């Protein structure tokens, strides 16, 4: 019997791999060790062959490369077409995507065409006793985790949150590269790309940061905000916000955490000058360690915090910055 295959879609834009694909290869490797499956990566583009070494070193036994000029820039319908044909030819058992903007648009369209199941932004994947993939899906702002499976349809498809799976890299792994010929009957219909504006994010993406320092209305203005940025800088984290700082322009829309913003699950969340309204809490409650700093001892955020510090942040943060700098062995500021 042929080995069953776990496939990972390798997202690339402009020849740059999205890290989540490498993270998924790490998870696929773990799953494959248990089931004896092979790990295959599939990558689409115009000239993507130079990326295959890196993909193999991150755990792929096999890389399927689909190259065609019309695949240079991601477009939904051509990508769906190629992936459909590849799945129909090779029958992967599992197919994983990063829950990125590309993955979130592409995976459901492909699943509907293949008439199979898809689970969204998983935080973990495991096998069950019957060799079905168990897909852990957070819902309701992280307050509920559903375990989804897809017993009767293949491939078992899932999108996985960036930043939750571990990469495993070893240089000099060997793997096979198969170039897949894309015919001239490729579906090139759909919206035309007029312009791409690549704007590098100013701050680290909140969703993937291990540390998030979040500020609220209590910060009072851009001056206090600098302290948060300094703290995030020291800890290699990102700065997030509640709604009022976004409305006031101290923080950008992209930084908002909560019901109408982002859902984050960092290892460390420090909320400063934040009251802890449920609109905000639904977006951060999945964090591993929650620290709250608030001048009001009755602030609701304390109820969902592991570590509660009552006080004015202007008095609490400077000695903390100093202490951390000392421990990090970095230079004291002048």
């Amino acid at each position, binding site marked *: 019997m042929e080995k069953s295959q776990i496939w990972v879609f390798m997202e690339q834009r402009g020849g740059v791999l999205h890290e989540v694909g490498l993270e998924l290869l790490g998870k696929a490797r773990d799953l494959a060790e248990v089931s004896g499956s092979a790990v295959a990566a599939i990558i689409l583009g115009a000239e993507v062959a130079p990326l295959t070494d890196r993909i193999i070193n991150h755990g792929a036994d096999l890389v399927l490369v689909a190259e065609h000029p019309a695949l240079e820039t991601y477009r939904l319908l051509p990508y769906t077409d190629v992936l459909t044909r590849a799945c129909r030819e090779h029958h992967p058992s599992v197919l994983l995507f990063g829950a990125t903007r590309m993955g979130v648009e592409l995976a459901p369209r492909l699943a509907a065409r293949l008439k199979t199941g898809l689970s969204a932004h998983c935080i973990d994947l495991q096998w069950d006793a019957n060799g079905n993939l168990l897909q852990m899906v957070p819902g309701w702002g992280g307050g509920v985790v559903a375990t989804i499976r897809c017993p009767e349809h293949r491939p078992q498809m899932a999108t996985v949150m960036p930043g939750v799976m571990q990469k495993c890299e070893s240089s000099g792994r060997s793997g096979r590269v198969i170039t897949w010929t894309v015919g001239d009957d490729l579906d090139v219909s759909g919206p035309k790309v007029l312009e791409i504006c690549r704007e590098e994010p100013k701050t680290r993406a909140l969703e993937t940061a291990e540390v998030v320092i979040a500020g609220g209305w209590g910060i009072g203005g851009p001056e206090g905000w600098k302290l948060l940025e300094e703290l995030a800088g020291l800890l290699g984290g990102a700065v997030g916000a509640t709604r009022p700082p976004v409305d006031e322009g101290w923080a950008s829309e992209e930084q908002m955490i909560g019901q109408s913003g982002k859902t984050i699950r960092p290892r460390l969340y420090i909320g400063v000058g934040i009251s802890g309204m449920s609109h905000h809490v*639904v977006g951060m409650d999945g964090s591993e360690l*929650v620290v709250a700093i608030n001048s009001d001892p009755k602030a609701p955020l304390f109820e969902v915090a592991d570590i*509660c510090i009552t006080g004015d942040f202007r008095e609490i943060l400077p000695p903390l910055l100093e202490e951390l700098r000392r421990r990090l062995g970095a230079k004291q500021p002048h």
Partner: protein
Amino acid sequence: MEKIIVCIKPVPDPLAWDRLAMDPVTKTLIREGIPSVINPLDKQALEAALEIKDACGAEVVLLAMAPVSTRPVLRQALAMGADRAVLLSDHWFAGSDTLATSRILATAIERLAPFDLICCGNFTLDGSTAQVPSQVAELLGIPNIMHVSAMEFRPPGPLLVTQKIEPGLVILEAEFPLLLSFTKEANKPRYSSFLEILAAETREIAVWTNAYLQLGAGLIGLGGSPTQMADLLIRRKVRQGLRLEGSPEEIARLLADKISQLGIV
């Protein structure tokens, strides 16, 4: 422009989520007593449709698959300026995953054809799968664009759509028919006046059951869903609630210790 269909999902009010409970036997969420609100991003979808209607005229039709008890949510959307509403409601629809839900919505949309544009929210608050828009479009065989943060349509000019990507933006030129799903940057949904809200109170809402859609049992509900729920866990994290006391310097040391324990410093 003839017709724009806006897919609206009534979702349980997030302010009441702490009252969510789980039925230990059926492993389903008990939503009883939790009020429904319109999924926030679906207001962005409706506003986008209404802006086109204001500019070049179009019939705006609301479509929701939900229990009939959520009629008030559709009335709120009617008050914003939609022309009519169709509610898809049938016990056969219960338990549908995103593919089965999309089949039901797509079939209803075929009954409403011809249409030019379908507007969706980019994701919902409760399930937040963000899967329904691409799946409805696929089942209808029309193109779709997700993560739409801006739209420009000045006939006879083309439809220009700005899509958020990582990192940055893409500008796309699209043709109708098309499905778009909108993010919160796309627009500011309008408020309805008291008179509009009052007028919507008595508006008719069509209810379609599967008797009209005629979908086979193997296509909808639990039986038509490729994915199954194996388990459901309500995670109410137990937090330590440890209060750090002392001078700011002492607090700084204690907190730095905690951070070190995480292996971050």
